[in-house]
């Protein structure tokens, strides 16, 4: 077991500059405690996806250090991937596979034997798509695809779950269902969750702490209540409008 002193994610002075000098994030620092649900909020282009992709080992930082349970994402990406699972924004699934085959395929990349069968059963239960699981994914609605993808990441029970805009495009009912599942899994299995969202209400209800990104910089961080008190705001939307200046 990796020892990280109760810290799941440690981001120190993270900067990402894309080709052409476009800055994704600049000098970003924050940490996430083990078992915590942490939300990154901010407008489009604020650097949320960049941050999540770096933590998920998909892209590399220009400078700075990112550690997941004490493991450096640049030096040991494969080790980090054993600890995490990632649901990208608008994550889909292979169109030619049935829902069931997709679940099985994704989980077979992590598990085998009896553990695989257990994980597949768990994912089927989470997705709750009934007979639709026997149909090709190309016949699914956006919400169904989202649930299918989410079921595989939840059933893998990673130590860190990274969710990029997990409820974007979902109707209210599905969104509530997803939030409940994420909260439930985090509580039941001690899974640390890092999520990004535009939906302030979602973050307010789900996250223990929040980081507000604006133009690639972390402009505020704390629990929702702390931020409200600090800025004299009634809700997170107001907090955001005030801290961005």
């Amino acid at each position, binding site marked *: 077991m990796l020892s990280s002193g109760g810290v799941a994610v440690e981001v120190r002075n993270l900067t990402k500059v*894309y*080709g*052409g000098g*476009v800055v*994704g994030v600049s000098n970003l620092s924050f940490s996430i405690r083990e078992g915590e649900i942490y939300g990154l909020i901010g407008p*489009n*282009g*604020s*650097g*949320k*996806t*960049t941050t999540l*992709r770096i933590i*998920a*080992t*998909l*892209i*590399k930082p220009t400078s700075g250090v990112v550690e997941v349970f004490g493991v450096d994402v640049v030096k040991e990406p*494969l080790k980090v*991937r*054993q600890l*995490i*699972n*990632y*649901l*990208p924004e*608008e*994550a*889909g*699934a*292979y*169109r030619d596979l049935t829902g069931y085959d*997709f679940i099985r395929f*994704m989980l077979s*990349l*992590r598990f085998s034997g009896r553990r695989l069968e257990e994980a597949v059963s768990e994912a089927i239960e989470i997705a709750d798509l009934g007979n639709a699981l026997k149909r090709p994914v190309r016949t699914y609605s956006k919400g169904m695809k989202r649930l299918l*993808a989410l079921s*595989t*990441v939840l059933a893998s029970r990673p130590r860190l779950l*990274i969710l990029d805009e997990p409820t974007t495009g979902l109707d209210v009912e599905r969104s509530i269902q997803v939030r409940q599942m994420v909260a439930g899994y985090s509580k039941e299995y001690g899974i640390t969750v890092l999520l990004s969202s535009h939906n302030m209400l979602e973050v307010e209800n789900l996250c223990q702490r929040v980081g507000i990104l604006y133009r690639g910089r972390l402009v505020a961080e704390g629990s929702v209540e702390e931020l409200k008190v600090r800025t004299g705001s009634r809700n997170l939307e107001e907090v955001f409008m005030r801290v961005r200046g």
Partner: protein
Amino acid sequence: MALKQLIVREVKAALRNPAFIASLVLLFAFYTLIGGAARSGISQAVEEAMSMRVAVVVEENTRLVNTLLQNLNSSLGGGVRIYPSVESALSGNTYVFVFPKGFTESSLALGKMPELKAFIKIDTFSQVAIQSRVSFVQSIASLISTLLSRAIALLYNMSIPPQKTVTVETTAIAFGKAMSVSEINSLLNFSMAAMFIVSFIMGITTSFAAGNTAIEKVEKAFEMLLAQPIPRRDIVLAKILGAMIIALLNGVIYFIALYIMLYSMTSPISTAPTSSGTGTIEAIMTNIGWEALGYIVMPLIIGLIYSGAIGVVIGSISSDERIAGVLATPITFLYIGLAIVSMFINLPVNTTSAALYGILVAPLPYIYIISKLSNSLAPIAIGTATAITSCIAIITIAIIVFNRDTVILGIKWSRKKRET
């Protein structure tokens, strides 16, 4: 009006796609380049044929032969050299004509046709050079026919019938091995067909690999896959092997269908095999044997890995299947173009040319045939080693690309945008 707008939209979509423009520029530049190279190869082959000396071995020393040789030497600007044997003549010349015993008698007697023997040295990859050498021998035989009638008229004050022409029995000494011209043509046709098959299936593999990798991105499952605890190397290899299997299946079905189509188109009357077809098979079996099958299979396997890896690289740097398709299509033409152009460039057979053809992979069957004919393992070893090294290099590039941001972000073709 609506139709016009729709058409304009379709055309604009293509013209505004930088990958499409890049592919057009690439294709234009490449084919201009290979056109120039082929033209240079053809010119070189023709010049070489015209400027080369003609070596002659005389087996009977008669007035007629001597006069004929003097006239031939004058006509060729002093390019005729006499040698005591075919072996000594071939050591320093490309063309050797032998005036055999009985030539004078055949020339003078009614009802007999004078015959020469000719030897052509084949020491090049270029089909153009080979064909121009064969043509040159025919033109020399034609010149000798003309000079013969003049010599006879001058020496014997008699004329010979116009239909009495000098025939020539030509033997090609291909990389040290003697064979008929039809045999060398059969082997050239075989190597051309093998190169075409290999380059065609390589093109399919690249398209499949590029398309599948790019589609995975469009399906939005790609980032999920890359975040799984599996080495990127395994993902790359799986994509290459998957594309290979699909391309092989596709290629096999395509060629079976093509064969059935051609077979069906054959006239039911001509059920007997044609002499040319039988000749080709005979020539291959005589000069190469069953190894000929390996000369297609080996380059095919290497080519599939090579082209699959290129396809994976293209797919991994493309943001969607449209861009991947636009980039993969010219690559397919490049394989075929490079295979064809190799038949036109008059490269000498040496380590560098064997290595160059190994890098291109598709011309490998040609190198294998030359290795076999010359009883030298060097070309086959160098060509294969270079091809395998190229495969490893491209697979390594694919793995490197899969470990870089480009695999997620794609290559930016359009104006800079802020990333999130």
